[in-house]
């Protein structure tokens, strides 16, 4: 490791505010993207609770469904839905940055990396919708 220069002139380091992310939309969007992970975790927990209820018979499952219909749960899940969509969209949009795919010596444009992700999302969603609505 190389050591920094020994000479340290007098300087001023501006403090970083706790609310630094409110100053610019790009930073606020980043914080919202990070917070969206909490809602993703919530959806995972919800599915686990659903499986748990299913395991304990029809009465327990009906009780779970009644709990799901409570206004605050509906509100929370609506908010969670938008955050999860936001999470997925930002994730797919960032994918081309992380993957520099080269074909025939040229780097593929970002859209060529993002598009298959979106296509897979649509296909999987369509299959799940079909399974749910069929029943």
């Amino acid at each position, binding site marked *: 490791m190389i050591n920094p220069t020994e000479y340290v002139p007098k*300087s001023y380091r501006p403090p970083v505010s706790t609310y*630094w992310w409110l100053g610019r939309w790009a930073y606020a969007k980043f914080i919202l993207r990070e917070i969206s992970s909490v809602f993703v975790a919530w959806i995972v927990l919800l599915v686990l609770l659903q499986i748990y209820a299913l395991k304990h018979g029809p009465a327990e499952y009906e009780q779970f469904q009644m709990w799901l219909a409570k206004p605050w749960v509906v509100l929370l899940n609506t908010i969670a839905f938008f955050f999860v969509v936001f999470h997925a969209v930002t994730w797919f949009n960032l994918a081309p940055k992380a993957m520099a795919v080269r074909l025939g010596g040229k780097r593929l444009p970002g859209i060529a990396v993002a598009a298959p992700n979106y296509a897979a999302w649509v296909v999987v969603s369509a299959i799940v919708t079909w399974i749910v609505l069929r029943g």
Partner: protein
Amino acid sequence: MRYHPEHDQEPWFETYEVPLRKEWVVLDALNYVKDHLDGSLTFRWSCRMGVCGSCGMNVNGVPKLTCATFLTDCAPGPVRIEPLKNFPILRDLVVDISDFLVKLANAKPWIIRKVEKPLEEEYFQTPEQVDEYKQFSMCINCLLCYAACPVYGLDPLFSGPAAIALAQRYNMDSRDQGAAKRMDILSQHEGIWGCTFVGECTKVCPKHVDPAGAIQQYKLTSSIEWLKSLVLPRGAE
């Protein structure tokens, strides 16, 4: 923004009136202030053509090269000019970049060879091989990316965008054999893994280097190397 370390406890703002000319950039306005209004105003600049990377400042809150930011784009004003964020301020608009210089050297941004060829021999590269790293080699060390990076602002130990992008520039160079040496430093927590992919470094880069992309690609390489060392502990080379 003004700051005189001899007598100021913290920076303060001073307002100057400058003529608005169509062909003037923010740096021209600063030089007008220096030449006609207040000779004590201190700022760095050199080439006036977006090559030297020394005139970076925060213009209306956004890190910019002042030689490439037209006053007309900031009209009707006022234009708020601050030193680059996330660095200690030495005087007025001049910041202390020593921390970056240490990190840059630690990233080993030069070609490392296990065995050097004799001086008479050349290292050939195809245009495709040059294309692999050319984008990352455009960096002019202007440090706009550090000023835009909230991670660096919150954790000054973070290696930061330009240093990592430049490490990646040499990693992707077909003549280089030093990727493993750079990996030791950059795969630490304060290296690539400190980056939370805010992406602003790429947006403010005047040379379209895409440091955010470089860091994410490096994360992918580092993960693959880690996986290889796990699966093939003895033959990961």
